[in-house]
Each structure stands twice: as structure tokens, then as C-alpha cells.
């Protein structure tokens, strides 16, 4: 029975909440992340495609190895370490750069897509909080993509290592000839680099996530145009470039903080092979730029959670 206007009994609206159902806090988060991977297959397909293309190119390049080995005469019979490391480093860089682009475009669509196709009404009909949903979306560029980059890059480098070893064996080169860089060390440095980049780029990803929950269309323009316009305004009005410098550092400034790019003898370190000794996690973790960036990332994340709460279909 329903009661119309002004006829609700005057007793207070008593609490009649049902027995709470015990549910693990992490279960909705786990399924929300799985949902993101189902919905955005480009997250792993793009990385696998980049790895595949690189492997094909590398495999073809191995046809030239026997001739170049024959042409080597002492004292240059040992390829320099950097030359050996370069293909492995490029493999990691290509997959990491692909992941950065995927992360940016994923974040820009993360909250917009579900509003655009009205599926937000389905997601919100289930007992998954906005906090859980947005955290799952934030975890894609910050956790899932770095993990995928590492796994795919390691597998790619192992295949490259095996391929190059097999080619050298077939060409009867001396087994004493170094034919690969210290791949394991490079992989540790890659892992460190991925953690550094995820932390350093967190405010960028979270800004994109925030913007994805706000305009009705053209999220890319909304995300990119205001910072660029402000930078241009600053230059025109004050002839200074603080904002554009800050944006540039936010994109690429992590390497100068996270690595010692000059060794103890004052010799510059080639970025294709950075020894473990040149990592500078202490300096990176104590840099104000990192923590200021993370503070902004947290603010953007909170904003994105609040936006999702208020937003409906477009």
C-alpha cells in the first residue's frame, strides 16, 4: 500500500536496514579491474603488438649478424656493451612508450565512455561504490600497465637473447665472445624505471581521469588545452616559462632525479645501459617534485570519485 500526500504517519522513519551481507572489500575491486581489462583490450593488445613488431624487426636484423661478426677483428672483436644493450633497451623503451600513450588515452575515456554509452546506469545498479570503481580505473595506468610492460618486455628480451645466441652458435662464433648484455641487470633497471615513471606520471593520468568524468565531449581538448593556454598566457603576459617548464619536467624530468647520469669518474652514463649502481631511489623519493605531484594526483583522484557520484549518462 502506498500513501499519498500528507498522509505519512507521524512516527519517525525507523531504520529497517536488512542484515548486512558480508563481502570481501577487495572482491568488487578485483572484478572491477577485470571489467576494465575486458572492456579495454587495447591495454594489452597494443603492448603485445608493439612487442611483436619489434621482435619481427629484431629477428630480421639478426640475418646481418654473421657478416658483422666476421668483419670484426681484434682488438674490436668484442662488441661494446652499449651496442649489445641497445636493442634490449629499445625494446623496453618502445613498450613503455606505448604503455604511456595507452594510459593517457585510457584515462581520458575511463569515466567518459560509460556515460556516453549509458552503461553507467548498469554499473551503478550493482553494489560497487564509486570509490572502488574509480580506484580500479586509476589502477590501470598506475599498476596494471607497468606490470604488463615489465612482463612483456622481459619475455621479449628473453626471446631476443635466445634468438641472438642461436644465431651466433650457428655461425660458429666463439662461445667466449660476449653476445648479449647483462639482461637480468637491465630488467631490474627496467622494473625500477617503471615504478619511477608510474609515480612521476601519476598526476598526469589522474588529471586525465578527472577530465574524463566532466565534459560531455572532447575530453582530449579539455585535458590538454587549458594547461597549454595557461602556459601561453604566462609567456605572453610575463615573458616567463615557468608553467611550460613545469609541464615539460612532469613529462620527462624523472630521469635526472631517479638516476645518476654521470658516473663516479665524471663520465656521462649512456641511457641505453644504466648500471644498478647508478640508480638513485633515495634522491627520487626525497624530491619535492615527486610528492607535490602525488598530492595533485590524490586531489584529482578524489575529484574524479566525487564527479562519478554526481554524473549520469550524457
Amino acid at each position, binding site marked *: 500500500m502506498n500513501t499519498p500526500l500528507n498522509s505519512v504517519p507521524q512516527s519517525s522513519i525507523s531504520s529497517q536496514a536488512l542484515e548486512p551481507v558480508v563481502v570481501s572489500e577487495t572482491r568488487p575491486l578485483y*572484478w572491477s579491474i577485470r571489467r576494465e581489462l575486458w572492456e579495454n583490450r587495447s591495454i594489452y593488445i597494443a603492448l603485445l603488438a608493439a612487442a611483436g613488431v619489434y621482435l619481427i624487426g629484431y629477428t630480421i636484423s639478426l640475418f646481418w649478424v654473421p657478416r658483422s661478426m666476421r668483419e670484426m677483428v681484434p682488438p674490436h672483436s668484442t662488441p661494446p656493451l652499449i651496442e649489445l644493450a641497445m636493442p634490449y633497451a629499445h625494446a623496453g623503451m618502445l613498450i613503455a612508450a606505448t604503455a604511456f600513450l595507452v594510459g593517457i588515452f585510457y584515462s581520458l575515456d575511463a569515466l567518459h565512455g560509460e556515460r556516453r554509452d549509458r*552503461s*553507467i546506469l548498469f554499473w551503478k545498479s550493482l553494489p560497487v561504490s564509486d570509490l572502488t570503481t574509480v580506484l580500479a580505473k586509476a589502477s590501470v595506468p598506475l599498476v596494471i600497465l607497468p606490470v604488463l610492460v615489465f612482463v612483456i618486455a622481459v619475455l621479449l628480451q628473453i626471446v631476443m637473447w635466445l634468438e641472438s645466441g642461436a644465431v651466433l652458435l650457428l655461425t660458429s662464433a666463439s662461445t667466449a665472445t660476449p653476445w648479449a648484455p647483462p639482461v637480468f641487470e637491465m630488467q631490474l633497471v627496467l622494473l625500477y624505471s617503471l615504478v619511477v615513471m608510474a609515480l612521476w606520471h601519476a598526476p598526469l593520468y589522474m588529471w586525465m581521469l578527472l577530465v574524463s568524468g566532466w565534459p560531455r565531449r572532447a575530453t582530449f581538448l579539455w585535458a590538454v588545452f587549458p594547461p597549454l593556454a595557461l602556459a601561453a598566457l604566462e609567456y605572453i603576459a610575463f615573458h616567463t616559462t615557468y608553467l611550460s617548464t613545469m609541464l615539460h619536467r612532469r613529462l620527462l624530468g624523472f630521469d635526472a632525479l631517479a638516476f645518476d647520469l654521470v658516473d663516479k669518474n665524471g663520465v656521462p652514463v649512456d641511457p641505453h645501459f644504466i648500471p644498478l649502481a647508478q640508480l638513485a631511489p633515495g634522491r627520487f623519493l626525497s624530491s619535492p617534485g615527486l610528492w607535490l605531484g602525488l598530492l595533485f594526483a590524490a586531489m584529482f583522484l578524489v575529484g574524479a570519485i566525487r564527479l562519478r557520484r554526481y554524473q549520469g549518462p550524457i
Partner: protein
Amino acid sequence: MTVIEARGLRKVFGATIALDSVNLRVDEGRILGLIGPNGAGKSTALNAILGLTEYQGELRVLGRDPWLERDQLMRDICFISDVAVLPRWMRVSQALDYVAGVHPRFDRAKAEGFLMKTDIKRTSRVRELSKGMVAQLHLALVMAIDARLLVLDEPTLGLDLLYRKQFYDSLLNDYFDRTRTILVTTHQVEDVQYVLTDLMFINRGRIVLACSMEEFESRYAEVTVRPEQVAAARALKPIRERQVLGRSILLFDHVERQQLAALGDVRTPSIADLFVAMLGDGPGDKGSAAQGATR
């Protein structure tokens, strides 16, 4: 047990009052139809009940504040808002996996059982299904959730007659068990006339009619008046008069059926007839009828 209770529920969008101090109570085991013209405040009311929009006033759904406790409330409430909200990229099997993963009251075997009665394949993506099949899938997911309240906002919009009938038949035969409560809004009122236990009209953010279907049937009568009785019929102050094939059809509120039988053929009006009588001359113009309806 009261499932929904609202006092002074109000929602304003800029200068537009979407809900104007609405009071209502819905008890357990009822199937309530919330009917109103476009822009009347139906969806706003449902969104407030579902915790999708902020509101002023007091609102409790299953004892909880929907705005503050939406995710906990969604363990006990299901809703289908519109027909096309299932993600188009999703496979049927993924929909089952996901709902089973996040919903503690979802019975996957039950959902599989409902789907067995349809032509829906587990491997199909939602975008590959017809509109009717998407509605069947959504209903199968919802009916497999042991919820206390089911809210349906235009759940059959755009579906053909067969799918619409199947939808409500399934709802009544396979889901409704008199301990659950269903709240439905639709413009296809003829589909729900014999499904509802209660009826509510909303217009311009105010509830202008609220009654049980038993009350509706006993209170309202439509008479095809014999020509010689038209003057006498008009004297009984019908709330609406219309002409069909030269015959006068008058709709009465609170007039004895025995008295009406002397004037012509008497029948229970359709919800649509009453809706047009009360709201048909423009939203909110039938103030007197509305006041009478909520007496």
C-alpha cells in the same frame, strides 16, 4: 514493512522544480506503477530512491539513506533503467561472471536457468543481440538477484508487443513472490494495468493520484451513455467526457455503479483513460481532478 518512505522530498534543477515536497510510502509486496507525462518528475524520483541524485527532504529506502548508502543499498535493490544500458562490448558470460563476482545475492544458476529459456548464447556480445534479447538478458540478471526492491524505469521502451508481454509475464511468474516490491515507470500503461497492485500519477513534481488497484476499480467508472441519458449523466459531474463514433463516453469518480448502470454501459476505465482525464489537457491543468484523486 515499509520499503520506501519519503517526506517532503524535493529536487530543484535551476529554476525547474522536479520534485515538489513529495510524500509517499510503499509497503512490502506491492507492485507500484508511477505514471506521469514527460518531465513530470518520475525519473528524478526514481533516481533519488536509487541514490543516483541528491535531494532535499527525508527519504528512507529499506531503512537506509539512498544518497549516503548507495552501494550498500544496491545489495538489496535492483534496477533496470531504460532498455539499452548493458555495455555493448560485454559478452553474456562476462555479464554473468561480473554480477556473480560483485553481487552477494546473485544466484548464477538461476540466471543460467532463465537464459536457457531464450535464444541468447553465452558467447554473444551484447551488441550482437536484438533489443528484445538485451532486455531478456538484463531481466535474467536482475531476477537472479535476491533483492527486496526492484525498480524499473521504462524497461520495455522500444520493444515489440511480444517481448513486452514476455517481460511482464516473467516478472510476475518467475520473480514476484509477494515479499518483494516492484516500482515501475512506463508510458506503456496498457502493459501494466493488470500487473500493478498500486497506482500513482505524478505531474509537475507532485503526486496527483495514489491508490490501490482495488480502489481504482471501485472508484472510477466509465460509461458509454445512451443519447437520451447524456444530460442526466452530465449532472453527475464526470471528470471527463469524450465522443467516440457519435457516442458520449463519460468518466466518473466516486459515483455508485448502480446509479451509472441506468445511464448506459459501465466498465472500469483503463489507466490510460484516467491518465488522459486527469492530465490530458496539459500538464498540471486539471488541478481539481488531481485534488479529488488524492482525497
